[in-house]
Each structure stands twice: as C-alpha cells, then as structure tokens.
C-alpha cells in the first residue's frame, strides 16, 4: 500500500462573526497560535465580530450572563438566569473575566491584534457588515489591513494546505 502523503497546514483563515469574549478570543488565540507556528494567518471579522476590531468596543467585550448554560458563580454554583438579567451584572462578570484572563498573560484585544500582526498575521473586516453597521475604516483599529468582500476572502484561500475555520 502506498504511504499516504501528509500535507502540513500552511495557511489558515479564521472567521469571527460574534462579539462575546469567548468567541473573539477563540479566534484570536487560534490565530496567534498559528502565527507562532509559522503558519500564514488571516483573520476575518464580520457581523457582531466587528466589535473586536472597532476601537470604541474592542476592549470592552462582554460575555452573556443570560442564556449561557456554562455560566457559573465564583465557587462553581449555578448562575441564576434571573440574576444575569439584572442591570450591571453582565458588565461586572465580563470585567471580572477580562481581569482573570489578564492574570494568565492573555493580552487585551488591541494588544492581541498587534501581537498577531507583529508575527505577519493579517486582520480584515467584512465590507457588507461594515455597511450594515454604518462603520468606516476610521472606526477600526490601526492593525486592520483592509475592508474586503467575500470574493476577496476566497481569493486569499488559494494553495494546498489552506483551511478556513468559522468560529
């Protein structure tokens, strides 16, 4: 039997369409991890994911305290949904989560983007979503290289050993 040839991952495109801390960081950690391995990396932010590259919102991301079955109280007890809906609770929980991440040396979003581009990774915004949310390039962080269409994105997918991941 012929030995199967393994093709290593050479290029990865990560698409982030949500604004919650966990969704954005999943894309950032995977993207940065790929850059660290010397893999060509492109991150594409669309829909609510644009919050992660918009200067005003990027460092104030929230996690959902309602409708999130994984949410726990400190100590591990279940987090009552009614409590999660009270004003200020989501902001408080999110701030606490960001603080805990910082303690683990996980950078804030803006610094994470800089780390990714320092290693040669590229950050893109979705044109259609930008139009929808009435955002301009000036609203976005400096590390965003361009606002592109879906067609542009697919053109970047050429080459053997390329993968697209939608987070």
């Amino acid at each position: 039997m012929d030995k199967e040839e393994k093709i290593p991952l050479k290029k990865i495109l990560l698409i982030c369409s949500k604004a919650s801390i966990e969704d954005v960081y999943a894309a950032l950690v995977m993207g940065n991890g790929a850059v660290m391995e010397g893999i060509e990396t492109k991150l594409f932010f669309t829909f609510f994911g644009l919050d992660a590259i918009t200067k005003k919102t990027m460092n104030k991301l929230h996690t959902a305290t309602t409708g999130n079955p994984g949410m726990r109280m400190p100590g591990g007890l279940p987090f009552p949904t009614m409590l999660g809906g009270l004003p200020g609770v989501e902001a408080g929980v999110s701030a606490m989560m960001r603080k805990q991440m910082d303690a683990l040396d996980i950078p804030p979003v803006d610094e994470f983007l800089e780390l990714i581009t320092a290693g040669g990774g590229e950050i893109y915004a979705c044109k259609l979503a930008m139009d929808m949310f009435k955002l301009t390039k000036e609203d976005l962080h400096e590390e965003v290289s361009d606002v592109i269409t879906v067609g542009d994105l697919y053109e970047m997918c050429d080459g053997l050993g390329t993968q697209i991941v939608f987070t």
Partner: protein
Amino acid sequence: MSIKTIAGVEVNVNDEGYMEDASQWTKEIASEIAKEEGVELTDKHFEVIDFVRGKISAGEGLTIRGIGKSGVVNAKEFYALFPGAPLKKVTKISGVPKPTSCI
C-alpha cells in the same frame, strides 16, 4: 531520549532535538543548533537567549508577549530574529524545554 554530539560535545536530547539538561548548554552548541534551524546567531540573538534561559531557570513560563515586553526585543523584532516558529526555535537553541504555552 538519546545522545547527540553537538559542537563536539555529547548532550542529551529528546526525540524532537530539545536538550534535556540545560546545564550542558554552551554558546557553541547554540550556534550549531541554530545553523540546523537556519538561523545565524548575532549578539542580539544571544541577548534574547540569555533572557529565555534566565526565565526558565527562574521557573517562569515563556510567551511571545512576555519576550516582547522584556525590553530586549519587541514582538516584531523577535519574529524577525527567529523566523517561522520563534518560541520553538529560541527554546531549542537556548537548550531549554519546548514551550507549553498556547499564547
């Protein structure tokens, strides 16, 4: 574990070529491993290597963010000095274990 002769010295290395005993490390060994990794070491490289070995001997973890804030190099310069997979390369050349960090 196996024994490999690097720069004329017998050292213990693991399957991936990482040295298992940091005390066996010398600058000559570093240059030899660097050559295999396609890196020609300069004084700047050795400054980073010193920082990395210092961190490991102090029992601390390594991240690219940490190296970028070390004052020795910033993240961009670090990527330029050890192109490709910088954290893996610098630890291999520095004779310390392969990093386990995800960030």
